[in-house]
Every structure is written in structure tokens, then in C-alpha cells.
């Protein structure tokens, strides 16, 4: 085989050692530097999102990665109907539904959410759901909000740590999306 082949074998061995690194641990856990999840802090945001994004043919579906619960769409209690009006047999969105929406929304991108919150909401567009809502990223539902409008302020103020309840109240006046039933299922 000769010295040449021995040298080759030595190089191969050295290359093999490149891959001989420690294995990735199996049980690493992370938390999230999460925005306010209280009724005061997130409730208005959740109500706006239920109205704007949570219809039964959009994010008001259990199959969605981003699930939104509320009285205008998917209910947490199967005995509830998608109706907010008591007169019509419904009931308002419950705190448990707000909390479920919160878990779904905040849990989508744990690391990115931590980054945004740690930055006091300075770069909300790092979050996919903000980009989709603004239309800067492809979204089946299209561009729903404009940076700086009430809807946008509702969300970004929450991410910044101080929910602008007035903006959220104004935002909920925007029409439900989609205005008419279509097969447009938002992603």
C-alpha cells in the first residue's frame, strides 16, 4: 500500500474526528420572555383578534397553528355558540378563551417572541404573525393592518408592555375578516 496510502488513511481518520463531537442534549427546555397575559393586558388584544382574524373559516379552527378563540368564532366550551349576544343565546368571550388565544399566539415563535419582548416591542415585525397581518409576508388573508393604525397600535403596544386599550377599542370597529364567507382560509 505504501506511504501514500497510509497518509491517505491518516487524513481520512482526521476527517472522521471532525464529526466526533458531543451529541446534542435531548432534554433542553426553554421559557419565553412573554408579553402581558393578564385580562387587562391581553383581553383587549384578544377581543380585537377574535373579531378581525378569528372567524370560523380563518383562525377560528382547531387545525390552525394560530388558534383564536372568542365569541365571534371558535368557542372553548363546546356548549357555547359563536355568538356574543346574550339575547341571541351566546355569551361574551371568556377569560379562559383569552388565555387559550394568548398561549397559541405567544407560543408560535418562542425565541422570537422573547427577543421582541426583551426589546420592549421595538421590532415587532420579527414576529411572523405581525408580518402576515401587515402583509409584508404572504398571508392568505392579505394585508389586514397598516403600521401605525389602531389595529397595529393595539398589537404593538401589547408587545411593548403597555397595551393601548383605546387603540384596541378602535380596532375592533374594523370589519370582520372576511366580510363575506369565502373559501379564503388564512394561514
Amino acid at each position: 500500500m505504501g506511504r501514500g496510502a497510509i497518509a491517505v488513511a491518516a487524513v481520512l481518520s482526521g476527517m472522521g474526528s471532525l464529526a466526533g463531537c458531543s451529541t446534542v442534549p435531548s432534554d433542553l427546555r426553554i421559557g419565553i420572555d412573554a408579553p402581558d397575559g393578564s385580562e387587562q393586558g391581553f383581553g383587549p388584544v384578544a377581543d380585537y383578534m377574535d373579531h378581525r382574524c378569528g372567524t370560523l373559516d380563518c383562525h377560528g379552527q382547531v387545525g390552525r397553528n394560530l388558534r383564536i378563540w372568542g365569541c365571534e368564532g371558535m368557542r372553548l366550551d363546546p356548549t357555547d355558540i359563536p355568538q356574543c349576544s346574550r339575547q341571541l343565546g351566546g355569551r361574551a368571550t371568556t377569560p379562559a378563551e383569552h388565555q387559550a388565544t394568548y398561549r397559541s399566539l405567544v407560543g408560535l415563535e418562542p425565541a422570537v417572541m422573547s427577543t421582541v419582548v426583551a426589546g420592549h416591542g421595538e421590532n415587532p415585525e420579527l414576529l411572523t404573525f405581525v408580518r402576515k397581518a401587515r402583509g409584508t409576508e404572504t398571508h392568505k388573508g392579505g394585508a389586514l393592518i397598516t403600521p401605525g393604525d389602531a389595529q397595529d397600535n393595539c398589537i404593538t403596544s401589547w408587545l411593548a408592555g403597555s397595551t393601548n386599550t383605546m387603540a384596541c377599542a378602535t380596532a375592533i370597529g374594523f370589519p370582520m375578516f372576511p366580510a363575506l364567507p369565502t373559501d379564503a382560509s388564512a394561514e
Partner: protein
Amino acid sequence: MTFSRRKLATAVAMAFTASIVIAWPASARDRGGKPTAAGAQPSGDFTHAPAAEGQANTPIPIYVEYAGGEQVTRVIVKYKGAQMEDWRRLDLKRLGVGWGGLISCGDVVPGPMRYWVQGFDEGGDAVATSGDPKDPFIVPIVDELTGDAPHLPGGRPPRTCSKGGSRGDKGEERAASPDTGEDSERLERLDQTKKRPTGPHKGDENLEDTASERASIELAGYNDSDHITVVTPSVNMGIDNVSGASLNASYLVDVVSAASVDIVSTASRRWEEVRQAGTVSGLYKPHDFGVGVGGSVSSEPDYLSYGGYALIVKDFDEKNWTATFGFGASHDTIGRCGIGGGCTPFSVFSRDLERGAFNGGLAFVIDRISLGSVTLDVVIENGDQSKPYRYIPMFSPGVAPTVPKGASIDWVNANRLAERPLEQLPLERHRAALTGRYARRLDGSTLRLEERFYDDDWGLVASTTDARWIFDLGTRFEVWPHARFHAQTSVTFWQRAYVSESSTGWNLPEYRTGDRELGPLVTIGGGLGARVYLGSDANPQRWTLQLTWDGMYTSFLDDLYVTERTATLGALTFQGQL
């Protein structure tokens, strides 16, 4: 959306059968290609009929033909005359349907002339051989022939050199054999063309074209039980020059249609996509050392990849050993598209993945009918290669142990927690694979075996075994069964049901995946292949039609949604030498 980058590598058979038709006295030539020279001569991949004898101080013509399944682009003869201490090499040239050359008269002295033949593919790998240093062909060199003088096919015997003719003195050899056969002259002209400066010269129109071109087109298809269909037309072109240079290029299109469970589970619908990929590579290996470079580009709406590589090839021990070292680097940009076909610009959302790949290999001749090789690949990846579409369902600590293998989409949606984070894979990966190949020429068939061991620092360990047995059915038809077995463990962070500890705020698994290719699985596959040579009787391999079909069954041992997958893969290839 990113198709899982499933390689539609067609199950191209790799056979190495061969034949030599020797340029020896016509009366000694056996149409069946069997040696007819006196004494026990070696057999091998090349059909071979050594001459009964050669005349001293006279060039010995050697002509071979190759009818095997490998793409032999270069053939050499190693020879050693009676007064030579070392083996010398003679590069054979394309000649008609075969290869031919002349052993210089200066090396042809009384006594035994030993030689053996090797064939190499475009990558410089020895893929065919007849004889070896320990068991060479032997032709007695005598002062006066007792029979017909050997000659190249259709040509006249070369003339005896003038006294003092020395090895490599082409001018003297040429002067001494002005009346050699037509093919001999052609060979000598080829040598002369290599010595000439480049550029047009008067009379060049009479020179042989020293390059051989080939091209192929292929249509491949893949379909599986997870509702993924891929159709891949492709075209390949290559050119080889007798000086040892080769250039290759390929282009393919993947047309993907998918409605896999991974898509449906996120309430999305079928999507279709087109991927285009091109490669170009070159290799220059005039003697026992060569260098090669190449590059590739692949583009699909949400994925862009480009890369390049360089390699060196070195032969040792009279080409009984060939070593290859290479390094490649690539850059991938991973983006995201929507269901409707619109894509987010990379400037808005993208992830980068850098990849460096080292490759080292040894190919060796085991004996005159067996070849082997060992290859080590090491790949280092840096970047976030998590799928931007893949969200991972989370379960409570109480529910997770109850999640059944193959749990349906409805079951998962009904029992998972609200949070469903994006897939997150480690940002670095070190991968290594050791591959061994063995090929043995049997009587009327060729057996090829391959074993590959894989390991990485994500904890995935895999073994892939591949076997192919190629049978010759006459000179124009080959057929082969193919079998493949693959088994792998999961990555360390693989979970069928990941747990989110919601009772204490946020407590999620840092690494989480739903990529079944990272989970434990077993795949069994098999199929058939057939190749027909459609060229003329003189050169049947000029046109080749090949059909392969493989079926695969995969059992996913610890997964959501699906527990098994069946798939079929077929390819129809038409190749020609231009």
C-alpha cells in the same frame, strides 16, 4: 414550500463487464473474445486475446474493446519489457469502437513482455481491469516471428524500428514505420496533436477529433402514499478528451405536487411547485494526478442553494490505489411561500444555512475481478434549517404518554395544547458517513454491494445496505434486481409527543421537530432495472436505453399521523455517444 429535497437519484445500475478484442493476428482472434494465446493468460473485465508472439524492436499494437456497463472514459495499459525494472504506462486512444495503442519499439526486446489493462470512469475511478501486476498478460518477444505479425484492426502490422530506436521516440518510430496500418497512423497522429501548440493549423482538418461527447435525457417519477408526486425531467451532457480532461453539465426540473399529512395537519391544502437545478463540473487528470472543480445551483420559490467544490485525485502503486480528496461549500437561503403561491421576499424573511463538506476516498483493485472503495464524507452545517412551515403540537404532561403512535390529525387537534411552536432544530450539525463499495465480476454477471454507516451529533445513527446483481443477457441486454435496506435511530431530541409545562408559565422543549426523517424508521426497498444497447453491431453502446423501477416501504416507528409509507420510483434514460 420546500419539498423535503428528496433526491430522485435514479437507480442507475453500475456494472462493469467488458471485453477486449485484441489487435493480434486475425487468425488468432476469437470472435467470442476469448484469449487464444498460448499459455494461461488472465481473464477479466476486458475480453482479451494476447498475441502468440511479438517481434523485437517493433511496436506492439494493442487494441481493446469494452462492452461493460461502466462509463469507461480512459483505458491504459501497464507494461514491462524483459529489460525494464518498472511498469510503464501506455494510454490507449479511441479507435473505432474500442481503444488502441502501440508499445514503443524501444521497450520491445527479446523476452517476455508483460502487460495488463485498466479502465477508468470520468471521475478517475478504476472500474474495469484485465490482468494485474501479479498476473499480467505475457507475450513472448522473439527476434523472428513464426506467424503473422500483430496489427491493429483493419491496419497493417507496424514496421520494425531502425537500430537505436528508443522508447518514446515517436519520430523515429514513425520514420521506421511509414507503412503501418491506417489505425496505427491514426494513433500516432493523435500523439502528435498533443504535442502541437493550440490554435488552428493548416492540415488540422485531417486530425482525429480527440474528444468524445455524450448526452442523456431522463424522465424520472416518484409517488408515495403520503400524496406526494414528483416528476423530474433532466438532461446531462459531457465531453471527454484523451488528454485526460472532461467536462460535464446537467440540468433538471422537479415538478412537485404535495398534499402530505404534514400540510393537511396545518389546515392547508395541496400545493405545487417547480424546482430547477443545474450542475457543471470539470476534471483534468492527464496522468496519475488530477484536479477537478464543480458548481451547482438549485432554485425553487422558497429555497435557493448554490455551491462549489474542488477535488484532487491521485493514483498510487500503479493505480492499484486511487485516493480522492475534496472540499465543497454551499450556501442555502430558506424562505417561505403561501398556499396561494405568493412568496415572501427573502429580504423580508429568510434563513441562511452554510455547509462545508469534506470528502475523502480510496478506491482499490482487490484482484483482477474485484474492485473496492471506501469513502468518508464529513459535512458541517451552520444555520437554522428548521422548516418554516412545520409547527409542532404540544401536549400536557398528563396527555403526552397517551398519544398513540400514528395519532390522527383530528386526535392531535382535539388533545393538544393551544401552543404549537415552530419547529426548532439545533443551529449546528456535524455529519459523517462511511461508505464501502465492492464490485465483483462473475461469470455472466456483476455483483455490486454497498454499505453506508452514518452518524451525526444530533444522535442519528443509520445503516444503509444496497445490493445490485447485473446479469448480461447477450451483448445488447442487461437486467438486474436491486435491493435496499435502511434503518436509523432518531435524533436525541425526537419525541412523538412533546410536553409543554403550561402550569408554570412557559416551559417548552428547546429543540423540537416533526420531521419523520429525523425519527426512527426502517425502509425496505427493491426493484428491477434493464438496459438495452441500441447502437450498431460495431458499437452497440453508442445508444443506450435504460429503465429502472423501485418500490419502497418505510415503517415510521414513533411518529404522529402516519406509521408507514409506500413509494415508487422509476426512471427512463436515453443516452448516446455523440
